[in-house]
Each structure stands twice: as C-alpha cells, then as structure tokens.
C-alpha cells in the first residue's frame, strides 16, 4: 500500500489557498494541497499550528475566511456529510446517556436504525455494548474510544480524527492504530491529528507536518506489507 505513485483517482480532499482568521490571528495561512484517497495521513505539528482548525474547516464546522476546498468531489461538505466521519478534540457525547443510547441516537442521524451496527462499533473499539453506565461516568479512555466509535459507525469513506489517542493507554492506542490501518486497507481515507506520532509509524502512509498555519513538509512512509522491518523513511 506504500508508494509515491500518482493516484489514478481524483483527490479525496483538494485545498485551494485555504485561509482562516480568528479575529486578527491567522490559524490557517493559505494552504494548498491535494490528498489522494485510500491513504492514512497523520497530521503533526506544534500546538497552534492549525491542525485542529484544518480538520474543523474540512469537516464543515467552520467556513474558511478565504480560499476554498473540495471534499469527495464536492464543494459543499453538507452534500457528502453521510460519507464523512469526524472526531473532535472534545468527546462529542451526551454524559447523561449510556454508550448504546449515544450511538443509537447518532446512528439515527445518519439514517441507521440497526442496533447491531452500533454494538459492533462499540466492540471494535473495545467497549462492552451491554454496559449501562452513563458516559458521564466513563473513564477518559473509554470516552475517547466511544467517541471514535461514534465517528465511524456509519462506515464513512473519509475519517477526520482529532487526537484519537489522547488519554488512551499505550497498548490500547497501538490496537486502535492497527484497527485504523486495517480500515485504511479496506479503501478508506483517514486523517489523524496527533501529538503521538510514533504510535502511527507502522501504519501511516504519509506524515503531514504543519507549522504556524501552513503545511511545511509531507513525508511519505514506505511501509512493508507485513511490518517486520522498521519503516523506511523516504525524504521529501
């Protein structure tokens, strides 16, 4: 799945001079980039680099101040919302409901009424669907995992995940990373913003380095099909 060859399909995301201001602060300072589908991109950078802002703009939660972008071939995120999954910095869950109730509700927003799908999503992230504890009483790690389940339960082609590993123990995080790798292998496109780059080294296709509102480097990861050898870093 590694490789630097041009993708023969159209880009999943195409950014054209994307700018975002918060008052006088420029969080995104004119980003133009193209991202091919079916790959796992890891977005890294210091705090304030604009990673979360970029994800929010692409997810349709914020309008860019200048510039435009195409997502899954459309200029309007609303049109392709059912094919996109977003996981934010905050949990995006209702504290007063339990795990299944949360997932059932959000599944309904995507037109999914089959409980088995929600249950599977919970199992995939390592949670027990029968757990009747309210999310407000979950540990941080559990909440994080449920949030991931919520983001992907409608089987989106494109996943935008902001810090999915924060508050999760190392072993679970490695498991989740492996899961993401397998999901990517099924042809999905995944963007992961994280401060814990090493976790993703085995599964990432590309590291996208951001700094001060711009993409400053894109680093292809040449991976072996079976990750026995350490990954070879191709330089930019």
């Amino acid at each position, binding site marked *: 799945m590694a490789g630097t060859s041009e993708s023969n399909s159209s880009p999943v995301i195409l950014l054209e001079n994307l700018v975002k201001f918060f*008052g*006088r602060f*420029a969080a995104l*300072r*004119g980003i133009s980039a193209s991202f091919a589908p079916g790959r796992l991109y890891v977005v890294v950078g210091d705090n304030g680099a604009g990673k979360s802002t970029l994800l929010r703009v692409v997810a349709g939660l914020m309008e860019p*101040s200048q510039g435009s972008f195409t997502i899954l071939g459309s200029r309007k995120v609303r049109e392709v919302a059912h094919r996109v999954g977003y996981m934010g910095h905050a949990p995006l869950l209702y504290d007063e409901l339990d795990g299944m109730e949360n997932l059932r509700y959000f599944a309904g927003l995507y037109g999914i009424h089959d409980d088995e799908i929600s249950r599977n999503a919970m199992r995939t992230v390592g949670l027990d669907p029968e757990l009747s504890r309210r999310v407000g009483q979950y540990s941080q790690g559990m909440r994080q995992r449920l949030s991931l389940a919520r983001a992907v339960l409608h089987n989106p082609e494109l996943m935008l995940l902001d810090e999915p590993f924060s508050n999760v123990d190392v072993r679970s995080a490695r498991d989740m990373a492996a899961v993401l790798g397998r999901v990517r292998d099924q042809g999905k496109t995944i963007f992961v913003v994280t401060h814990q780059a090493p976790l993703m080294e085995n599964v990432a296709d590309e590291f996208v380095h951001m700094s*001060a*509102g711009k993409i400053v480097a894109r680093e292809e990861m040449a991976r072996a099909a079976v990750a026995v050898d350490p990954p070879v870093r191709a330089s930019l």
Partner: protein
Amino acid sequence: MKKLALISIPLTLFLLALSSYLALAVAPTESTMGDVQRIFYYHVPSGWVAGLCFTINFLASIYYLWSRSPASDAVAAASAEVGVVFGAVLLITGPLWARPVWGIWWTWDARLTTTLILWLIYVSYLVLRRFAAGGQTQVLAAAFAIFGFADVPIVYFSIRWFRTQHPAPVIGGGPDSGLAPPILHVFLTNLALFTVLGMIYLVLRYKLQMQEQALESAHAQAALKGVA
C-alpha cells in the same frame, strides 16, 4: 475620510442651524398650541429619518444574509445606530410636546407604543452586535433584524385592536391633519434637511465601519505574511 469629515462637519452644523432657524424664527406661531408647537419640526422629521434608517437596516440585513458582503453589514450597523439616535430624539420630543399641549406625558396608543417597541428592538439589536463573539456577529445580527422588522406590523395591529377595546387618550394629529401653507413649507423643508442630515451621519458611520473592517483585514493580511 479626513476630507469627508472636513466637508461634513460644517455641512451638518449648517443644516442643523438652518433647520432650527426655520423652526424657531421663520415658521409662524401656531394658533392653538403656541410656540410649543415648534417641537413638531424636530419631532416628525426625526421620526421619519428613524423609520427610514430602520427600513434600510432591514433591507441591508436581508442582502447581507444573501450575499455576505461586508459593505451591506456595515450599512446595517450604521443605519441601526443612526436610527436609534433619531428614534431617541423622537421619543424625547414627543412627551415634551404632549405635556403642555394635551396634559399627559405619554399614552399607550397604537402609534406611540409601536414606536417605542420598535426602538427597543433596535436597541437590543445594538446590544446583540456588541456582545456577539467575533465573526458571527454579522450573521446573528442580520437574522435578528429580520425578526424585529417582521414584528412591527404585528405590533401595530395588535395595539390598535387593544385600543379599540380599551380606549385611551390619543395624542396629536400629525402632518396629515391639514397644515396651513407657511407651516407646511417649513415642515417639508425641515423634513428634507433632516433626511440629508440623517444620511450624512449614516454615510459617515458606514465609512467608519468599513475603515474598521479594513483595519482588521490589514492586520489579518499581515498575520498571513508575517510569522515564520
């Protein structure tokens, strides 16, 4: 902007002076009400300008939601402020006129109440603009302005009906209750003068708003280029 100020300040002073001169010296003393009636020349034109401004605000708000052009938002902001000021003049001169002539400061009839409520709605519009956070201000304010304006006819009719049920003193006739020619002339001239005055304020305020926006843009562009 400076040139505009240099022209407009003397111009507005001149207009104010002229309208006051007309109202206080040129117009004949009214037969029944006496000199107090001269407030009429400030009262009604202020009301007219306020109404004009609020209509402009409504149209600018709709246009803003459709086009998102910063200029239309600036017009909306400016017209609301100027409208509130002239509205305040209207609401203050009204009772000042009513008390000596009709014996009461205020009455809750359809016209007065509608005016007061409209004024309150636009004051709250300005409060909303002040307290909304950042980039959403314009959108939220524009949405609110539409509500406010849509409310006005409803308010008017509801109070008119209320008053047929519970009659109360009605204050004042109004310009259509037959004005003698010299009074009519001064009135119409003042109406025109006040309109010009109002529009000058509006343009000045609009320019100020646009300048503030340009300043923000400049800072923002600098932020884009700047920082390594």
